[in-house]
């Protein structure tokens, strides 16, 4: 009966009930939408970055993580990669050799970062194949190919098929080798289009004397973007002592830190919006309490206990919350849908990546974060109930005579 009365009380004031639950709905929809979008953006950004610049677990020479010294290399990398693959057949294992150096054409010479990659494996995880302007992605087995950014190509005044000389330094010695430009790409990030050079791993390995089959990192990747719990231990077992084995969080602390900061900012804003919504509900409920004081006095005259009045108003708040949350949830989903289906092209993202040197997919799509949506929806119902607490307790404190006297 209390439930029915509460429901009817709300229906009796359609305007006010609508305004109050509208407040909840609007805020919830807004939160759900931004939350799904933010999650989507981060999943993409994290996924691209983890895959392209480290791995879910990454094997590097001991001390490389701290020093980022390109002289620190893992020797016999393919033997290690094979061992890891045997131990973890479900993973993809790829090697990269990252060197600092110089690229020179007859016109100019420019300092660059050179990545030696396994053409086929890298093609599957890198965004650069989609950003090719001219030529083709690297071909496994063809030596002497390089891919360079369009800006760099302009600086060097070279085009497809032109000769360039790569010079790398390793253990104090400079090694130079001629290459041909097999393709150019535009990532959209000025410094990367100017700085990033890709070549086949075996060709680059040949330039380093005195070390067999070197690699900077052996990247172990899985489906999805969460790092499986046991992966690090199992890779460590396959690798044995010596090189360092890191999870993505350890290899890319900046990335995870940036995600954390961004999400904290998000929570701050959401909680603020939630507070505004609850003040809105509180206001409506308080007003409806003032307007109904006499009616509540009558309920008291008929012998309804103070706790009964509290229950009644809490139920009203709860119903408002449930209704608003439902509405907001639906509206939030509806707003998310086009973002999941089509996404928006957010070209600037490449300039804002927390970890530089990664080409990112700029088409940002939202995801449905069901767990978070559920939590926020529940949170809003709770907010509504909390907001009704004050009016409810006030109703419970009303003196019967006083309420009957009010108009």
């Amino acid at each position, binding site marked *: 009966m209390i439930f029915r009365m509460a429901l009817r009380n709300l229906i009796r004031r359609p*305007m*006010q009930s609508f*305004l*109050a639950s*509208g*407040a909840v709905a*609007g805020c919830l929809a*807004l939160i759900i939408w931004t939350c799904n979008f933010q999650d989507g953006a981060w999943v993409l950004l994290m996924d691209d970055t983890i895959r392209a610049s480290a791995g879910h677990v990454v094997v590097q020479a001991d001390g490389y993580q701290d*020093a980022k*010294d*390109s*002289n620190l290399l893992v020797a016999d990398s393919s033997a290690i990669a094979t061992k890891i693959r045997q131990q973890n057949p479900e993973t993809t294992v790829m090697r990269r050799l990252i060197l*600092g*150096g*110089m690229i020179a054409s007859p*016109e*100019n*010479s*420019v*300092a660059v970062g050179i990545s030696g990659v396994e053409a086929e494996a890298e093609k599957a995880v890198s965004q650069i194949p989609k950003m090719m302007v001219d030529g083709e992605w690297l071909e496994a087995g063809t030596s002497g190919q390089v891919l360079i950014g369009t800006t760099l190509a*302009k*600086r060097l*005044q070279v085009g497809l098929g032109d000769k360039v000389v790569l*010079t790398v*330094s390793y*253990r*104090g*010695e*400079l090694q130079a080798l001629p290459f041909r430009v097999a393709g150019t790409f535009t990532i959209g*990030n*000025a*410094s990367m289009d100017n*700085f990033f050079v890709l070549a086949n791993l075996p060709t680059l390995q040949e330039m380093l004397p005195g070390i067999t089959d070197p690699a900077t990192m052996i990247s172990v990747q899985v489906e999805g973007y969460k790092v499986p719990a046991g992966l690090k231990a199992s890779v460590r077992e396959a690798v044995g002592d010596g090189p360092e084995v890191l999870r993505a969080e350890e290899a890319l*602390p*900046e990335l995870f*830190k*940036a995600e954390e*900061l961004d999400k904290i900012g998000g929570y701050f804003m959401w909680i*603020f*919006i939630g*507070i*505004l919504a609850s*003040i*809105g509900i*509180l*206001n*409506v409920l*308080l*007003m409806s309490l*003032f*307007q109904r004081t006499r009616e509540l006095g009558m309920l008291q005259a008929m012998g309804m206990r103070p706790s009964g009045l509290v229950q009644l108003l809490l139920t009203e708040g709860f119903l408002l919350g449930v209704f608003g949350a439902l509405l907001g949830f639906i509206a939030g989903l509806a707003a998310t849908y086009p973002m999941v289906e089509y996404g928006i092209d957010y070209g*600037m993202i490449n*300039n*804002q*990546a*927390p*970890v*530089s040197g990664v080409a990112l997919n700029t088409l940002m799509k939202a995801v449905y974060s069901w767990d978070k949506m559920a939590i926020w929806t529940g949170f809003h119902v709770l907010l509504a109930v909390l907001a009704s607490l004050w009016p409810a307790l006030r109703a419970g404190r009303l003196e019967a005579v006083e309420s009957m006297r009010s108009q």
Partner: protein
Amino acid sequence: MGILTAIAWRNLWRHPTRTVLTSLTMGLGVAFCIFMASWIGGFLDVMRTATVDRNLGHLQIHHKDYPETMNPYDVVPQAQSVIEGLQDKPDVKIVAPRIQAFGMYAGAKDEAASGSFVGVDPEAEKNLTEMHKRVRKGRWLKNSREAVIGHRLAKELNLDVGGELLVVVNALDGSIGNQVYPVVGIYNSGMLERDGGAMFPLQDAQELFAMGDGVHELVVLTQAEEKIETVQNSTTNAYPDLAVRTWYEISPETKQMEDLTAVTSFFFYFIIMAISGFMVVNTLLMSVYERTRELGLFASLGLPPKRVVMMILIESGLLGVLSSLLGLGFGLLGHLFLANYGITMEIKEGEGFILNGVVLDPVIFGQLNMTQAIIPLVIVMFVSVVAGLWPARRAVKLDPVVALAQE
């Protein structure tokens, strides 16, 4: 008018809780906008400091092909006379010449590396970019025949202040220039590229590259931001063969960020607009509903509908004023907090976000310009009055007889 305002004011205080809650909600919305504006202003400032103040200056002058090719042969012709010409302009504060090139470096223990080579006028650079403040160890350039090196290069070469740096470059006359310089300082400019290289006094650089008194780049700081385009135009007119570009033409990313910020602020303004409109409609509708009888009485006393509307609009306007004041108060408090204490966005120790190869300062201090503080206030006022129209219309549509008959 006077009596209407008095009635409107007293009506507001018939339900102090309601009025306070309503203006609190709207005020918090305004405060949030002001706080956000302060935060975004602080962030943009950090960004501008990192890009404009520490590197780009207001204007840059190059050989007309240089921006495209960055070819070291494309030097500014007759640089000295250009510099003198610029320094004569009253709007110009500082002109700093630079040589932007690329060198190969070696330290004492045979480690070799390649990186950027920047030749500067130590005094001008000190005034322009305050590079001397970015020196972490040792001191800034003072005399000829000495070098300061970036912290990344220092690490790579295992070189410290007091050590010797061997520089090898391709001179412009086709010869190989090499020279040994004592290292007098290690800097952290926050620019990834520059931190992997070294800086030298201008004359030494010109000598090493065998380029006479040529320079690649003239960086201009004007007296004020508004003068940038004036100086750009007059310089372009005086030297039609040179490329004269503003910082925002060189680094559109920074400008893009500012534009994105405008969109974000718009989004927030929209939210407060929605929230305040909602709250005002809610509050005033309720007060009109509960005063149905009283409004009927006004009508029966012969108050023309226009003045009833007026009265309700004054009420909503007063609510807007109240909210604006509250919002301004809270918002300024938030801004003062942010301006004095700042918020740390640390990605790595001592380093903030990395934006397009530039490391931002980790602590963001609030920055607010008056317009940004006033816009939300204006919006709230406007929305309040507009939102008052609906309840006001309802009030005048009431037939006095019907209204008086209502209990």
